[in-house]
């Protein structure tokens, strides 16, 4: 097997067995990045020299027997809102265009201790505000399945990098679906853990009560492996939770016998694409065949999640982004008259349109006279949404549904209408409001040849149930060819719009989908 096609776990086992080295793996990744970045633009910064130096050091420590873990020597990509000491961290914003952090995010430090090799920093929506990676100040990332489509967002660069084989796995952050939705659009696995599971230290804040860091990987095994490595209590994050059950790889069992799975009727209503619906219900059928008890139920309040989210997230963003003032770091305008004019001009020139839109909305909902009507109201509805989930989890182990109403939209199709873009987050956003864990994994390919994602949602601290269900489904589904061979990929991306679905993995899924139409 070519090392480029391996999962993270396979690569580290191969390195451990002495059949390849961390240095060879890093070099192979960098060559592929060099070859493909012109097409996809997954990265804001590629750190070739740094990656090779890390790889050499890690390889020595592996050979010395110091590094024995399941991620030792495996190259990864890091979303550009996670601080990396000495390495440019832009948040895909002009305002941080020259920002070199002096410290490293805790999640990244933990991976480095496990022997990870950082290839570079991935593109994202500016300050993680967006659902397509098109609000980046450094240009849009393209979906590797078809470069006319967006990779999703805001962790679009991370998802695309995994899908395009430009890293073995990546870190992302999820405030309203920003890991799960791009994972779905790019046909990879993405997980948002329970709030407080992964330290937010060094994550440039957007909506602090909603933000969580999580993995984007090629399969469920890698997802559990990375999550296990980055989860730990951290005194540097005051919302970090002490938990003892972070041995997530133990949950990789092909066993859902008796697992209670609820399908919310509210997630299958108007606006859901028929192909997505069929594919997700087919996946539920697979779990049922394996012995899960699958039922439909009414979750309620689903349509209130988005307005609640945008009120809270914008409020927190307006406060969090006050720190960008052109004094201590980042962009400062060239011409100004006095301190306040400098603040205003630096911020107005440094922030993009979507970021300004949310800062203004947030400032408004927090202003005196509107605070109770908007901000406190949203926090009250948040409590109701949490209660609706509590009631659901009294009956079910796992909630199953789509990740997004459609597969990836075309480039340029979403930005003209912000509210329409926000509606794309309808199935992911409530999970953040309620602090729950959620996982996205590929469950099909649509007629356009784009991946469809399945979402599993668990109660707080029930990642293991999610991983067990996801692993069992993955086994039933069979191989999902993440990155078709270069020739085939080019075939699918013919400029005349003719799209073939000619990958073996895709064909296999199509086939099983049709066979499985009868059971739901």
């Amino acid at each position, binding site marked *: 097997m070519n090392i480029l096609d391996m999962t993270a776990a396979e690569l580290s086992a191969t390195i451990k067995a002495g059949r390849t080295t961390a240095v060879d793996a890093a070099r192979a990744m960098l060559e592929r990045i060099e070859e493909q970045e012109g097409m996809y633009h997954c990265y804001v910064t590629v750190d070739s020299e740094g990656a090779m130096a890390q790889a050499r050091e890690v390889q020595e420590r592996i050979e010395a027997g110091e590094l024995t873990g399941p991620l030792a020597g495996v190259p990864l990509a890091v979303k550009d809102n996670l601080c990396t000491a000495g390495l440019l961290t832009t948040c895909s914003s002009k305002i941080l265009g020259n920002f070199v952090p002096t410290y490293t995010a805790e999640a990244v430090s933990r991976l480095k201790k496990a022997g990870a090799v950082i290839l570079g920093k991935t593109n994202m929506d500016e300050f993680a505000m967006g659902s397509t990676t098109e609000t980046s100040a450094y240009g849009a990332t393209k979906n590797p399945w078809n470069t006319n489509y967006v990779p999703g967002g805001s962790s679009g660069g991370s998802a695309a990098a995994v899908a395009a084989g430009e890293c073995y796995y990546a870190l992302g952050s999820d405030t309203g679906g920003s890991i799960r939705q791009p994972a779905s659009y790019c046909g990879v696995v993405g997980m948002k853990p329970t709030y407080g599971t992964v330290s937010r230290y060094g994550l440039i804040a957007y909506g602090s*009560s909603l933000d969580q860091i999580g993995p984007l990987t090629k399969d469920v095994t890698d997802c559990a492996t990375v999550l296990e490595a980055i989860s730990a209590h951290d005194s540097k994050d005051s919302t970090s939770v002490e938990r003892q059950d972070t041995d997530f790889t133990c949950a990789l069992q092909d066993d859902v016998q008796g697992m209670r799975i609820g399908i919310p009727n509210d997630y299958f209503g108007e606006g859901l694409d028929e192909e997505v619906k069929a594919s997700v219900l087919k996946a539920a059928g697979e779990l049922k065949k394996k012995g899960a008890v699958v039922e439909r139920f009414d979750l309620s309040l689903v349509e209130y999640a988005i307005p609640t989210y945008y009120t809270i997230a914008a409020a927190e963003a307006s406060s969090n982004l006050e720190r960008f003032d052109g*004094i201590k770091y980042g962009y400062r305008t060239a011409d100004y008259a006095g301190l306040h004019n*400098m603040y205003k001009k630096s911020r107005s020139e440094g922030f993009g349109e979507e970021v300004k839109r949310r800062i203004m909305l*947030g400032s408004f909902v927090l202003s005196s006279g509107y605070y109770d009507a908007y901000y406190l*109201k949203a*926090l009250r509805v948040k409590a109701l949404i949490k209660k609706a989930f509590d009631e659901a989890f009294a009956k079910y182990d796992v909630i199953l549904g789509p990740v997004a109403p459609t597969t990836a939209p075309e480039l340029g199709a979403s930005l003209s209408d912000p509210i329409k873009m926000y509606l794309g987050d309808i199935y992911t956003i409530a999970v953040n409001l309620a602090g729950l864990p959620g996982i996205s994994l590929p469950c099909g390919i649509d007629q356009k040849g784009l991946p469809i994602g399945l979402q599993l949602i668990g109660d707080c601290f029930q990642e293991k149930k999610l991983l067990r269900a996801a692993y069992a489904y993955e086994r039933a589904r069979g191989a999902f060819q993440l990155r078709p061979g270069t020739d085939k990929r080019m075939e699918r991306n013919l400029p005349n719009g003719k799209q073939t679905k000619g990958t073996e993995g895709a064909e296999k899924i199509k086939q099983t989908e049709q066979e499985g139409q009868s059971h739901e």
Partner: protein
Amino acid sequence: MANIISDETIEYVGILAKLELSGEEKEQAKSDMGRMLDYIDKLGELDTTGVEPMSHVFPVHNVFREDVVTNGDTREELLSNAPQHKDGMFMAPRTFDTPG
């Protein structure tokens, strides 16, 4: 559109948000914010009487630690990110006019 954002409101929001908008940007911001607020008004359909606002999903408490310095001296590295610095300090524009 039910929510009409006045010039005064957008001016005030600009002050709070420390943003300077051009005339065209102001008009766009008024329309965008009006539409968002119309959408957010949907929350008014729900009766939340007696529901406590939920800031955090879990009970979170302030976390204290001993007042001991644990980080090293990174002054030079920190200053290297500053747009302007002098004598080991950040440089900011003059805040007060010199009395004259």
